[in-house]
């Protein structure tokens, strides 16, 4: 900057979201020789109007304020609460309501639009509101509170207009405790974005949320009561309905009055005419956002406004950006329902084809619009499940590359191929960020993860629907660069579980606080705390409720039972190998009966008793421990069960003693904490009745000894275990499993089961064999020692807990009422046992049993 050139003065009329984005973008490009004055009508800094409804659920105006640093910049002045009332183009100045005259070199109109009220009688009565500004919402809230007091009952309310904003508003009314209904003149909700079928599904979903929807209905008059406040509506068919409050969401009108008075070219339907550089008919005046009419129309969405803001800022500094036209895509959550529409959603292109998936029961409607040859994606609609929106929207105008129906199937359908997205495809429509821009953020701006890409490009920063896609592209580019994708455990530790394990071993830290201070930050979370508790348990071997580690455990490990959906617990005593004596069975039966527990056999040959309350657990276990049972650790990321067939002792085909070996293995590995649960199976012959090959370690008897299979999984991704070693004798079998488990525990990622661990392991099965059988790393002795320490240190967690009065206080249901049952628990009888009551059963009062039976001591 030289002394002689005065700064370029930019004046922005309107302190909107779009104005905020414009100033932010301008500052990023401008040198110091630019000053910006933003003049706003509302007495607030620019705020997030998209999140306006959160104001009613407790957000303060401060929470909604957009990034303040933009207006804290010394080059920027904000005149809030002082609207511009005239533009003098000749003198190049604007005049504000307080009579301040502000000169400009460039003027930017970002005056937005205002909510329309329909021209019906009574639309201005007290109790009629629009839904646009913080002030609108706070007056609505005050009115509802006051009116409720006056009338002494909950209110009813009507929202006139069933578009985007109307559905937002009726949700807000419900939030305020008002019984809300939507009145819409069109045939279906959101008629601008959805087709009839989609709108009908949306209507049904909204009605499921106790909101009445009335379509094809025009309001003709609004009636007042004696006090002059809103009391009812009259419709075009002559019918009437009472109402205490009315919210109009019948559309917006561009605030173009200033521009019209200044004789700028405007559209007859409203809006200041701009070209694709955002210039108006006066080349010193630009218009952006909802007030700007491009191609003859204005659009009330924030994303195109942001795009215009970027173009305007770029042009001011000699750039050549152009506004590409409106992208009407939108993904929203309206009164709790996901809705999205993009591209040519209403299939206006000639000969466009529809592919529709609809599930009226589940309340899902999905439609893709395709070119006449069914190859190119033109647009789409999602109602009730918009999971594939983020992946499909960038593909508009491009070949789908797969059967379109595959993208519409339930549970998200097929993943769209991010790798094939061309550079120019828009990934984030809110901020107009292309796939190419994300790639360059990684390659040129050096972003090292998706969070940095978001901060750098703003992709995924507004509505977040595309963030999964941003992550995916970022990971692909990082991998292409040979950089590792972050394996950080969580926000508190940059290390992966495996690195953390090594760090703890080497540093000899034995407390969570010590580990956190040395290797992490903050106070931890539900990811790192249980992980470190598990690592420490293996290394230090203390009781799960000892010292600081008690606070690290998930509730299941903390109370040594499995939390169920209603907050009660289930109890599983250990039965090694699935073997139980008749006396043991009797005790379990008596305990279950006395405490009223629902009883079921598990998939791992155990007995599970459900419905135990927190304060009952010690009493239940006192009886089980007395009868010789110990904790089955069904709650832990640890050895669960060793399943077995009956083996050679009884079975006429049996080759070896499967039950004996199963019992031996279970007693050896019981209580062993690991990255995920561990299951074993032992079959006494090749018929494999124990289904051992679906286990982490499967043992199958042969004429030549035991065969050991590893890395099997049931569950979500089933996998058969692979043969690691053949013809082992008992000791060799146990030694091999010892080393395999210990090596897994030391090196696996958090919640990584043995199957994916083995798949990721260097050299796979052969690599494992080299380490634990050929001892290629020379660590086999360490692994043996670690397992020997585990076996020596084992004690039954429940027996130890029952001896310690201090630990027992943790089972008090309430700190101020230690034995009072959770009053919210409710059960009904089914097939002779109890089960938790459903919401409907609670509401209808048909609940038969309040809590399971009272404890009975013997």
């Amino acid at each position, binding site marked *: 900057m030289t002394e002689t050139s005065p700064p370029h003065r930019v004046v922005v009329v309107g302190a909107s979201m779009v104005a905020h984005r414009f100033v932010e973008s301008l500052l990023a490009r401008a040198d110091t020789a630019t000053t910006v004055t933003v003049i706003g009508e509302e007495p607030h800094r620019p705020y997030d109007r998209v999140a306006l409804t*959160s104001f*009613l*659920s*407790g957000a303060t105006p401060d929470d909604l304020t957009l990034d303040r640093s933009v207006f804290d910049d010394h080059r920027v002045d904000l005149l809030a609460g002082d609207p511009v009332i005239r533009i003098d183009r000749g003198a190049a100045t604007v005049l504000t309501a307080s009579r301040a005259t502000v000169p400009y070199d460039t003027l930017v109109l970002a005056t937005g639009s205002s909510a329309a009220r329909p021209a019906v009688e009574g639309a201005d009565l007290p109790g009629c509101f629009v839904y646009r500004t913080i002030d609108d919402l706070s007056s609505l*809230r005050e009115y*509802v*509170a006051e009116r*409720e*007091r006056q*009338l*002494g*009952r*909950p209110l009813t309310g009507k929202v006139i207009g069933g578009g985007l904003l109307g559905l937002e508003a009726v949700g807000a009314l419900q*939030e*305020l*405790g008002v019984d809300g209904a939507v009145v819409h003149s069109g045939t279906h909700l959101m008629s601008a974005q959805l087709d009839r079928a989609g709108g009908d599904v949306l209507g049904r979903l909204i009605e499921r949320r106790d909101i009445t929807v009335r379509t094809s209905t025009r309001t003709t008059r609004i009636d007042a009561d004696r006090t002059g406040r809103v009391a009812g509506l009259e419709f075009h068919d002559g019918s009437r309905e009472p109402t205490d409050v009315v919210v109009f969401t019948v559309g917006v009108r561009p605030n173009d009055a200033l521009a019209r008075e200044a004789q700028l070219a405007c559209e007859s339907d409203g809006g200041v005419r701009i070209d694709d550089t955002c210039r108006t008919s006066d080349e010193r005046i630009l218009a952006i956002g909802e007030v700007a009419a491009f191609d003859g129309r204005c659009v009330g969405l924030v994303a195109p406004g942001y795009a215009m803001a970027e173009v305007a800022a770029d042009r001011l500094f000699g750039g050549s950006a152009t506004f590409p036209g409106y992208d009407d895509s939108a993904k929203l*959550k309206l009164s*709790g329902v996901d809705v999205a529409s993009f591209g040519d959603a209403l299939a206006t292109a000639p000969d466009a084809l529809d592919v529709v998936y609809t599930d009226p029961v589940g309340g899902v409607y999905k439609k893709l619009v395709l070119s006449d040859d069914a190859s190119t994606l033109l647009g789409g609609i999602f109602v009730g499940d918009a999971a594939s929106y983020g992946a499909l929207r960038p593909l508009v105008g491009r070949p789908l590359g797969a059967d379109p129906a595959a993208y519409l199937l339930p549970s998200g359908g097929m993943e769209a191929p991010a790798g094939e997205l061309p550079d120019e495809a828009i990934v984030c429509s809110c901020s107009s960020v292309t796939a190419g821009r994300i790639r360059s953020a990684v390659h040129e701006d050096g972003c090292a993860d998706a969070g940095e890409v978001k*901060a750098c490009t703003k992709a995924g920063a507004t509505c977040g629907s595309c963030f999964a896609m941003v992550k995916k592209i970022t990971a692909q580019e990082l991998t292409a660069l040979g950089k590792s994708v972050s394996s950080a455990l969580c*926000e*508190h530790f940059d290390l992966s579980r495996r690195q953390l394990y090594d760090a703890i071993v080497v540093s000899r830290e034995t407390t969570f606080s010590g580990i956190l201070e040395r290797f992490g*930050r*903050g*106070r*931890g*979370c*539900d990811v790192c*705390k*249980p992980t470190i508790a598990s690592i420490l348990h293996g290394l230090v071997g203390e009781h799960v409720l000892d010292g*600081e580690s*008690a*606070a*690290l455990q*998930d*509730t*299941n490990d*903390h*109370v040594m039972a499995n*939390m169920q*959906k*209603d*907050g009660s617990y289930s109890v599983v005593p250990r039965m090694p190998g699935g073997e139980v004596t008749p006396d043991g069975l009797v005790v379990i039966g008596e305990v279950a009966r006395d405490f009223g527990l629902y009883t079921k056999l598990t998939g791992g040959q155990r007995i599970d008793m459900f419905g135990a309350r*927190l304060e009952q657990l010690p009493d239940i276990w006192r009886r089980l421990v007395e009868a010789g049972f110990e904790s089955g650790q069904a709650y832990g990321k640890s050895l669960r069960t060793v399943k077995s067939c009956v083996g050679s002792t009884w079975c006429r085909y049996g080759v070896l003693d499967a039950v004996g070996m199963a019992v031996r293995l279970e007693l050896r590995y019981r209580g062993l904490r690991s990255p995920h649960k561990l299951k074993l199976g032992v079959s006494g012959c090749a018929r494999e009745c124990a289904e051992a090959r679906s286990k982490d370690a499967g043992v199958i008897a042969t004429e030549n000894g035991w065969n050991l299979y590893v890395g099997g999984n049931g569950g979500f991704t089933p996998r058969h275990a692979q043969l690691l070693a053949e013809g082992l004798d008992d000791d060799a079998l146990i030694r091999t499993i010892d080393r395999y488990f210990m090596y897994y525990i030391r090196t696996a990622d958090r919640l990584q089961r043995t199957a994916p661990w083995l798949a990721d392991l260097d050299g796979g099965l052969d690599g494992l064999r080299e380490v634990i059988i050929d001892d290629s790393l020379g660590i086999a002795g360490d692994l043996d020692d670690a397992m020997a320490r585990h076996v020596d240190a084992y004690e039954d967690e429940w027996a130890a807990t029952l001896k310690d009065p201090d630990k027992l*206080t*943790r089972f*008090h*249901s*309430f*700190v*101020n*009422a230690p034995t*009072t049952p*959770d*009053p*919210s628990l409710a059960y009904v009888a089914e097939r002779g046992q109890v089960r938790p009551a459903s*919401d409907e059963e609670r509401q209808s009062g048909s609940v038969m049993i309040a809590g399971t039976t009272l404890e009975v001591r013997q």
Partner: protein
Amino acid sequence: MTMVTNPTTPVRAARWVRLCAFEQLSVERGRAALVGDTQIALFLLADGTVRAVSNYDPYSGAHVLSRGIVGTAAFAGGAVIPTITSPLHKQSWDLRTGTVVETHGHDERHITSFAVAVDDGQVFVKWEEA
């Protein structure tokens, strides 16, 4: 949600209710307390602060938050807030305000928070009569 007032009692009376002795709390492990039929989850943080929020998990419908894991969450601006994570589906809330900070893809459901006072070794919450 907090705006809904019961029309028959326009003014709510607030009083301090004693829940337990401070020494009954352990660091970063919650305890439930009962006031009438309302369940409150109490937490003693590592810095000695006591926080109280509703024990009700609005995502699962069960009263379990006192049995969740206490931690912290850091935000882009550098702010670090204390959090509680539900043991059922791992949503988490700001322990100071009850604002949900991790919804795991669900809609936002906030929980009630209560003012806490520790006086003479006793823990009190500010209780507004419904």
